[in-house]
């Protein structure tokens, strides 16, 4: 092909006539994002998101706590050096050993459903986009910006959840008993928190807010279905034998919080809420109960759990780049 183009040009080019008049593109203009390929945009947006994160270990109320922070870094006009005013996003405290011992029994109890959930579990090995696109009516041609936005949210959830896993390593169920025998290859990272739960609830939350922004008439049924879907994905991992229910509870808290934070960063001015998951307070024998943290009638986050704390409203730095993408996604969903 290259040779064809070379010879073809030789045949038609004629004598050199100099440049065509052109204007420079505007600097740091979000509208330029249109010009880039999706993967380039993804790199730009990811930079925008991840450069505002920080991870720390600290003792809070006597407990060994790990927190992901929003750095809120900015610089004044004319002053190139940024200054940060960090704000908490989410804090996780690892459940004690005894909790996992008890939770193992639940993993065994759920294994009863392995056979009939096999197709779902296999289809959900990688981020199970088909399951949420079906609820929200997404399509690569019609809703490309939405899919790009969700990809970004997924990236945020993935990075944060893996950082927590690295900090709070927990043994997988199969390490506690040779009888669990997961029905899929057990992933090579910590059990706690559940990445599938984190991602599924991040997506469910972001998508719900997006649908509502595009069409305020969409009622809580949309939220209910998205959250039921996220719950099902999370529980399927327990059925498969790779997660304890408490992993999903922490993943849900983290996912909803990251979702809310993500939406705030996209939409600009306003606040998000910071949360804490205290694994030492998680009732050891309790199954995963997603309704403790979300009200399906109002479509709002709630806290009726004994193990999560609302830390408070936090301002988030807006990002014109992320806003650009959000607005396009909202527009195409209208």
């Amino acid at each position, binding site marked *: 092909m290259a040779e064809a183009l070379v010879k073809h040009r030789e045949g038609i080019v004629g004598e050199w006539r100099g440049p065509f008049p052109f204007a420079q593109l505007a600097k740091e203009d979000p509208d330029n994002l249109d010009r880039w390929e999706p993967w380039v945009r993804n790199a730009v947006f990811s930079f925008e998101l991840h450069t505002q994160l920080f991870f720390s270990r600290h003792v809070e109320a006597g407990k060994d706590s790990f927190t992901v922070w929003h750095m809120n870094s900015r610089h004044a006009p004319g002053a190139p050096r940024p200054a940060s005013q960090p704000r908490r996003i989410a804090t996780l405290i690892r459940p004690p050993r005894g909790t996992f011992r008890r939770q193992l*029994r639940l993993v065994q*109890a759920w294994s009863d*459903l392995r056979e009939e959930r096999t197709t779902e579990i296999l289809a959900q090995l990688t981020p199970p986009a088909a399951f949420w696109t079906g609820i929200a009516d997404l399509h690569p041609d019609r809703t490309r910006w939405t899919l790009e936005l969700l990809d970004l949210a997924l990236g945020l959830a993935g990075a944060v959840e893996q950082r927590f896993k690295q900090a709070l390593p927990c043994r997988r169920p199969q390490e506690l008993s040779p009888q669990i025998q997961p029905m899929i290859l057990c992933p090579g990272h910590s059990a706690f928190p559940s990445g599938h739960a984190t991602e599924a609830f991040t997506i469910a939350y972001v998508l719900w807010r997006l649908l509502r922004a595009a069409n305020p008439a969409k009622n*809580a049924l949309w939220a*209910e279905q998205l959250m039921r879907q996220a719950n099902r994905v999370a529980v399927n991992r327990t059925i498969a034998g790779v997660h304890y229910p408490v992993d999903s509870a922490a993943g849900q808290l983290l996912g909803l919080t990251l979702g809310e934070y993500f939406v705030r960063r996209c939409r600009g001015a306003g606040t998000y809420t910071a949360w804490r998951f205290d694994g030492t307070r998680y009732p050891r024998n309790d*199954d995963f109960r997603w309704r403790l943290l979300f009200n*399906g009638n109002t*479509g709002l986050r709630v806290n009726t759990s004994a193990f999560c704390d609302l830390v408070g409203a936090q301002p988030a730095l807006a990002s014109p780049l992320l806003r650009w993408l959000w607005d396009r996604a909202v527009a195409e969903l209208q």
Partner: protein
Amino acid sequence: MPSAWRRLAGVRVSDPYFEWARRTGFRYFWGGTDPQRFPVIMDLTIPAAVFESGKWGHPPPRDWRELIEVPRNYGDPPPGLEAASFCTATVTADFFDRLPVDPALRAVIRSVELALPVASEPELLRALRPIEWPAGAVVTAIIDDALGFAHSRLRVGSEPRMEFLWNQDGPTRPPPGFNYGLELRKQDTAMAPGMKKQMADNTFAGLVDEDEVYRKTRHLRYERLGHKPLAARASHGTHVMDVACGADPATISDKRPLIGVQLPVRTTADTSGGSLARYVLDGIRYILRRTTKVPAVVNVSYGLIAGPHDGSSILERALDQLIQLRRAAGLAFAVVLPAGNHFLSRCHARFRTAAKARPMRWRVVPDDPTPSFVELWLPRNPAGAKVRLRLRTPTGDVSGWITEGETWVWQPAGQVLAEVIYYVAPAPGISRNMVLVALAPTASDAAGAQTAPAGTWTIEVQRHGAPCWVDAWIQRDDTAYGYPQRGRQSRFEDEAYERFDERGRELEVDNAISYVRREGTINPIATGRHTVTVGGMHYMDWRAARSSAGGPVIQPPGRGAPNSQGPDVMAVSEDSPAYHGILAAGSRSGSRVRMSGTSVAAPQVTRWIADQMANGQPYGRQAVSQFAQAGAAPGYRTEANPPPGAAPKPPSRRSGTGRIEGPPIVDPRIER
């Protein structure tokens, strides 16, 4: 090598299955530990209420209450059931030994059958408040597994139609008069919020969160180890309920309430039916207690293979008696059962004894972790027509000739691996003699477990007196729908039995020469006089479903001619030969699943009976039979107006008086 068979001397058998259970150290029923107390079902010569009170007409043994515990329900019968003479009980091992020899016990207890246990709870001393049913109400009651009461097809408006639900292995809140399980009520009680409130409280964005409702009522305990049928996408009980009484919640009358009895998971998992009778009888008594002033029809879509097949089993006679008593008290009451699906399972043998021994070849499959049983039922006249028999193991070890009243064991290396019990019925006017052949599992993971050899066990039967007809059935030992693999079904083998025709299709007729018979495979809990039995057919062409079992039933001792050649009627159990099953509710609202077999045919007749009761029309066995033969009703097709292309009526032994096609459960606009 010396034979490992030996005859046991001085064995007194009051229930052959208990004899086998104890002889094998309770290894296959209670995990090898002696449970001390055993659930049973009993046939009494006096009313159960009198029995429970201890006023037997002669002094009972002083310690009888230590031997026998009867649920209080039986001591406090609802009006009209005072004469009911069947009950369940929990008894000691000592009881089984004393029953055959203690005249005081023998005078009041005709026979007992062992059942598998569930965990028991202390009996609650609660007053039973009278229930106000709406005027003109008809109750449909379902005894089954996995009853998804919150399903939208089982609601009226946004409320559950289920008024009472007894989950027999639910935790810690038994219904009054019983000491096990969990009773849920629609309305709130002092002890717990009712099903109605739980559903209202767990409705989000207009959708009932059924998982949450079941979790909060403790009807479904996800944290429990083992099989949880209601957690699965399809459940037998919910499907059967939809077929029997499912409806659009917006249009259904509030006069069609439901009562549910969810059998213990173990009862369903153990398809050999070891515990079925006891839980069904308790369930029926529970339903009768709750329906003292209202007509009720009960659907029991359960079946076995082995049994007397003459209506004389304890459960069948108990059902017949309760139906008669309830009707005599002026209340409509019916029980509907499936004909069974073992027409082609090669589990029935029938032959006439002769001087020359007839060998029956019993093919026992490997890797069966449960025991296997054959019951040989002898004719009603034991005086002249006895048999003797001997067993040959797959290893070639032959027993001696076994005759009436004897018990033999095969014990090659420590454990008893096979036992033959020639059981003499204590009440020959009611039941027949039976030889139980019991085999240990052919596979086991338990430490120190010994297993029976898989392969062909030969049972040779010879006349011992006048020649007679003998029927043998292999007990059911397969795996229930959706359950983890458990038993493996053994079968009879005979080269004269033709399975396929020359085009490779499964044959549905018996030839004249094979002792292995399709006939007589009917569900042995469904051969009573007053229960309604339903076979299965295809929707497409009205042919019999291949597996739908058939009669004849056997002439009961002392009770004249058989009531029926087999099932009473047929209803749709399969869409077509290729498309098995029919569509009805899955476990959760909005889902539909396919389930097949006579289990899903029976509830269609249950639905018809409920409608008849509501209209004050005849609803009993005879009415059902007449309707199939010549009846007409909107939405129904019968032999009077079969669809174009309907096959000729199958033989009466399979189809009774005729076929009934009810209105479809799922909107007919859904393609099928």
